[in-house]
């Protein structure tokens, strides 16, 4: 028993040894943020930053390095999120939390290039941030103004180990109010900012697609967003690395908010969403145009009903005669004749709409054929050729009406549908060639028809493309 008591003593020593091991009882660390102490005098405006860049460009430089001796900060709000993977290694900030736009500090956005992922873990949408500009370079990156490290040629990424010292978080997290805009009114001042478009839908030809999960999508998927108000469209750009790339695009119409910017190659405007929650197309009543689509015929008709090659027209004058109705719905420009032998050549003499430098806020121009009587004719077809030049976001449609009475006053009130089988030159097509429409079959319609070539654009830079038309022919039989 003596031994047992000794043993028990030993055991109690062992038990009393309550040496703790660091394990398992970790308290939640203090993650509260303190407002960085940045004197107001060190804070400059986005406008001042952009002006420095513009000065550099005017001076023949591609970028500008901020090398002030005094600390120089900008303050803004995070508008992009890489949570859904549509933004990657970049943070987009704007200076306003809403659409206010005072002259001394106009509403602007900047892209910050950072070599780090999951930035939303630190910089969520609406977070106030202060960016220390000293040592950063301002330049153009994929068509929008960006800041980062860099050299005289380009902006480079801020490295993962540095960005936390450059971008400081404020305590404020605001609810952003996007600027509600019309597509045609958007300018480069709106780039890198949060824009809301109302009464929008995905173009009917893109409805069967996913955001960016199609085999034709490389790096980004582009889907046409169109306005139900005026059919003006913009491309929605979605990264093929986004989480939602494989989701089908929304089918209804409604509002969408996203960051306005340029595509990778700086060729056209795009809208980029942070998350599919940014799209609210829950109104099932789409605004698709009436369509006539009998497909394409194998051959065009043997007997001509109407033909126009514009050779008899006068250059730089509105198209007239031959039964044409030339109607300028908006603006000062209409369909007029031109001839050119440049690389963007006409076909002899051709028709075009050119709105650049017109100063017009909006241009809508119609060119309407005379009445085509379909009754009693077999195999009626339409052929024409189109070309364009710097189409930007302006566009051309080929429409038909079966109830227009031929008067200018009633053009807008008549029912116009789209001849969907016709190929019309697209924004992304080269400006050099002329594109055949194909033999557009009209045989599934009856009655009397007018065919209209309708241009929509404006005098504004982003919306002022040229569309060209030639060799319009309507045939039938046998």
């Amino acid at each position, binding site marked *: 028993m003596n*031994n047992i008591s000794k043993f028990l003593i030993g055991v109690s020593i062992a038990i009393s040894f309550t040496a703790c*091991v660091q*394990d398992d009882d970790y308290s939640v660390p203090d993650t509260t943020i303190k407002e960085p102490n940045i004197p107001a005098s060190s804070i400059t405006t986005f406008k001042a930053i952009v002006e420095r860049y513009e000065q550099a460009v005017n001076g023949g430089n591609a970028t500008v390095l901020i090398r002030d001796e005094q600390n120089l900060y900008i303050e803004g709000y995070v508008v992009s999120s890489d949570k859904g993977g549509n933004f990657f290694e970049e943070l987009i900030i704007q200076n306003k939390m809403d659409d206010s736009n005072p002259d001394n500090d106009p509403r602007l956005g900047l892209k910050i290039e950072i070599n780090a992922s999951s930035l939303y873990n630190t910089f969520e949408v609406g977070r106030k941030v202060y960016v220390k500009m000293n040592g950063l370079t301002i330049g153009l990156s994929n068509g929008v103004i960006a800041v980062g490290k860099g050299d005289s040629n380009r902006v480079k990424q801020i490295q993962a180990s540095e960005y936390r010292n450059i971008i400081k978080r404020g305590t404020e997290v605001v609810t952003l109010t996007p600027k509600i805009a019309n597509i045609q009114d958007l300018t480069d001042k709106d780039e890198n900012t949060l824009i809301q478009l109302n009464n929008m839908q995905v173009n009917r030809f893109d409805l069967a697609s*996913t955001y960016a999960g199609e085999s034709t999508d490389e790096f980004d998927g582009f889907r046409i967003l169109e306005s139900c108000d005026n059919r003006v469209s913009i491309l929605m750009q979605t990264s093929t690395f986004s989480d939602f790339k494989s989701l089908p695009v929304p089918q209804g119409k409604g509002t969408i908010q996203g960051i306005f910017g340029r595509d990778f190659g700086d060729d056209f405007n795009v809208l980029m969403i942070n998350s599919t929650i940014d799209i609210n197309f829950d109104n099932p009543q789409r605004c698709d145009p009436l369509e006539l689509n009998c497909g394409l015929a194998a051959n065009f008709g043997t007997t001509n009903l109407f033909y126009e090659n514009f050779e008899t027209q006068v250059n730089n004058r509105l198209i007239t005669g031959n039964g044409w109705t030339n109607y300028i719905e908006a603006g000062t420009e209409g369909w007029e004749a031109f001839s050119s032998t440049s690389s963007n050549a006409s076909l002899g003499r051709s028709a075009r709409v050119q709105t650049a430098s017109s100063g017009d806020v909006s241009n809508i121009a119609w060119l309407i054929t005379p009445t085509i009587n379909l009754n009693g004719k077999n195999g009626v077809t339409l052929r024409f050729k189109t070309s364009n030049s710097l189409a930007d976001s302006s566009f051309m449609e080929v429409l038909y009406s079966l109830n227009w009475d031929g008067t200018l006053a009633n053009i807008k009130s008549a029912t116009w549908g789209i001849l969907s089988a016709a190929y019309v030159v697209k924004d992304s097509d080269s400006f050099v060639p002329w594109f055949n429409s194909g033999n557009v079959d009209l045989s599934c319609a009856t009655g009397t028809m007018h065919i209209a070539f309708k241009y929509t654009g404006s005098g504004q830079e982003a919306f002022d493309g040229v569309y060209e038309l030639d060799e319009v022919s309507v045939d039938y039989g046998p």
Partner: protein
Amino acid sequence: MKRIKKLLFFIFGICTVLIASAQQTIIKGSVNDGVNFQPIANVIITIEETNQSTQTNTDGAFIFKEDVPLGEQILRISKEGFITKRFPIVVNEFKIVDISDMTLEEDLSESHDLFTIMLSDDELDDDIGGIDNISGILQSSLDVFQRTAAFEFSSSFFRMRGLDSDNGSVLINGIEMNKLFNGRPQWSNWGGLNDVFRNQELTSGLTPSNYNFGGVLGSTNINTRASDYRSGGRITYSSSNRSYTNRLMASYASGLLKNDWAFAISLGRRWGNEGYQDATIYESNSFFTSVEKKLNDKHSFNFTGIYAPNRRGKSSPNTQEVYDLKGIKYNEYWGWQEGKKRNSRIKDVDEPILILSHFWDVTKKTSLNNTVAYQFGKQGNSRLDYNGTDLVNGFPEGGGSNPSATYYQKLPSYFERNFPNDLGFAYIAQQEFLNKGQINWNDLYSANISNTVNGGNAVYALYEDRVDDKQVTFNSTMNSQINEHVLFNGSINYKSLKSENYAKVLDLLGATGYLDVDGYANDFENNPEAIQNDLLNPNRIVGVGDTFKYNYNFNAEVIIGYAQLQFKYNKIDFYVAGSITSTSSQREGIYENGSFPGNQSFGKGKKINFLGSGAKAGTTYKISGKHVFDVNVGYISKAPSIQNTYSNSRENHNIVPNISEEKITSIDASYIFRSSIVNAKLTGYYTKIKDANEISFFFADGIGAINAFAENEFKEDANFVQEILQGVEKKHFGAELGIEAQVTTTIKLKGALAMGQFTYDNNPNLYLSSEDFTNVYLGKSNLKNYKLAAGPHTAYSLGFEYRDPDYWWFGATANFFSNTYIDISPLTRSSNFNTDVDGQSFNDYDQTLAKALLKQERFDDYMVINLTGGKSWRIKDKYIGSFVSVNNLLDEVYKTGGFEQSRNANFRELRDDKALNKPVFGSKYWYGRGATYFVNVNYRF
């Protein structure tokens, strides 16, 4: 010679030698403990000249009656844990030599014991490289080579004969403790209970065990029968900087009391905030109790309970780039949280064992031992998930970034590759890694909290992969001495396992929920449901303590029958043994995985049956007491482990294609030499393994060729894959030498040598699977003649021991290791390596360069010096012992193992990566520890 004998006699004590007349020549006697004079059982008594041997019974008595040699003889009495003694006797014909009350002194250095423990403590348990597979089978024994391997080679992850530890069987009271999942024993289950785990019987190689058929590395039976412990107690305190900092153990055994009860208990605690590697916390408590009631001379019941919960922080293998910057103690798995080091990868083993045994001496010659054991509990391995998402319009968005500071995109090598003209970036990355270089827990919390404030879920979560096993084992072993020469051993054994496998949320790091979907499943167009981890509960938000990700059971049953006959004669011993094993296993999906809906993953899968068998025979031929030959031959066919049966058990029921039993053929031959000074054993062995499988998981870049092989629409060049190597053949051959020389009474020289060659011996089939494709056959992987990553193929040790009569001793060894190889990636040795996405060879494929790229890395040779020393004091009948060891005295820096990252799976990727100064996906290594110490004091009463 006479003088030596006298000297030996003098040193080893005086005992009574009675000589009496008899009908036959007999040697008999008894052995007692030199301190308390209690009889010692299971002492091996050997007549050196003829090598006849027997064991003492529970009264410490022994007898030789047959073929006793005449004249001057030497009796060697030995038992593990005691100092071996040799007694000279003179045997006359028809006389009885009665040499009673010989004494054995305990080997107070106990070094064998300490090392065995260190070994299981060290069990590096990383699931990635298979390094957990160090041969725990290295046990101390009386065999010189084995003992040296255990003492000196274990810290280099030396493997006996280059074989995995699943080739050795570990039993407690006849119950096999090797896990059915991977065939390996889980040493942590009884860590810290050294005092009560010292009654071990080891058979090495194919030599016969009395308990089971065993593997080609033999078997070890640990006996915890309460009456077999010597009465007394012990308190031990140890301090070390290896895995734990402190160890306290206390144990007491009663011996068989007058009321025919016996009990033994032991308690232990091992703990430390940090071992040799950074932030490797250690916390383990151990409880043991054994109670025996002897009903009568024939029947006795014993209950043993073992409970040793163990938590430890893991350490990471690292690339050379990381070691060069951070040193060999660096561990990527931890970060600071509120001033404490928090390790994200904790291994938590908590599996109590209950064993009830019935000992039945049916006759004087026949004993039956029936045992039932139940083991239950859990094993958990924690890690960080960084892909937490929120459901937006029915689809998950979000996810974080890899929080590891060694993630390849954060290291200088990545910037050197991508910005070779802007080395400033690499410099910044290097400074960042040098200054911080750990997980930033604050960032994880702040990301989670900010996402939660915005109505989202956790982006980061700490979870554990859990295995909750419940295993029942019945075992019945019979030993019958058929006659003086023939011993029969047989057993039947039944095991039934239910293993629950799932992931469990441990900590949401400031968030309140986690969306349980698989963000990596990306086949949304063909299968929008693929992201669901459980179609029965889609888009579930889980909280702390919830099960998520995967959930399935393995049910397995094993029935084993084994029989063995051992024949012992004067000049020759031999044995023959056979076994038959029926194994069945079945996966049962609790979750219905979105990528594998319906009966591909849910409910019970196909039941798989294997029939294994084994046969072995061997003989020991004793030319004389000095010269002995021993030869063993065996064939084992065994079921593949569960781990190597299912190709992706977390997600589906799929099994390895063309699976079959693994076949092992083994032969070894030894020559044993014993003289009064020198004791040596030389062994040659050859083992061939056939039809083995290996399954591994990794993220592979450059597997575009899969398109060509799978002929499907899979269009990605990178994916998380399961690599299935099927029909693997391996060849292990080599020689082992152990030698000891007692040059003076106090100085002993020791040497051991292991030279082997362990290679792949064929070009096995390679299949790849992922969520997008299943078991795509890539053809053969050209592995033949590549070396196996089995620790050093060559190791040798030289050393000495000085043992002062005044109870202190000192020893030193120099150990040399060479031919250690990296674990190669089979995928890069397959046709995927040179196949472009169109199924044709790369147009820039360069055979010579390819050969250089695929050359297997051989690690540098190295030498490690170890010192041991100790002293003990006897105070009346109590002992105080102390022991100190220093390992790697010279602080040698050496690689013990490593593996190629399979991420660069094809020629172009590998070429481009290896062309860099610092490869981005370089191999990952384990380094040995620098100089470490271990100090131990104990008090015995």
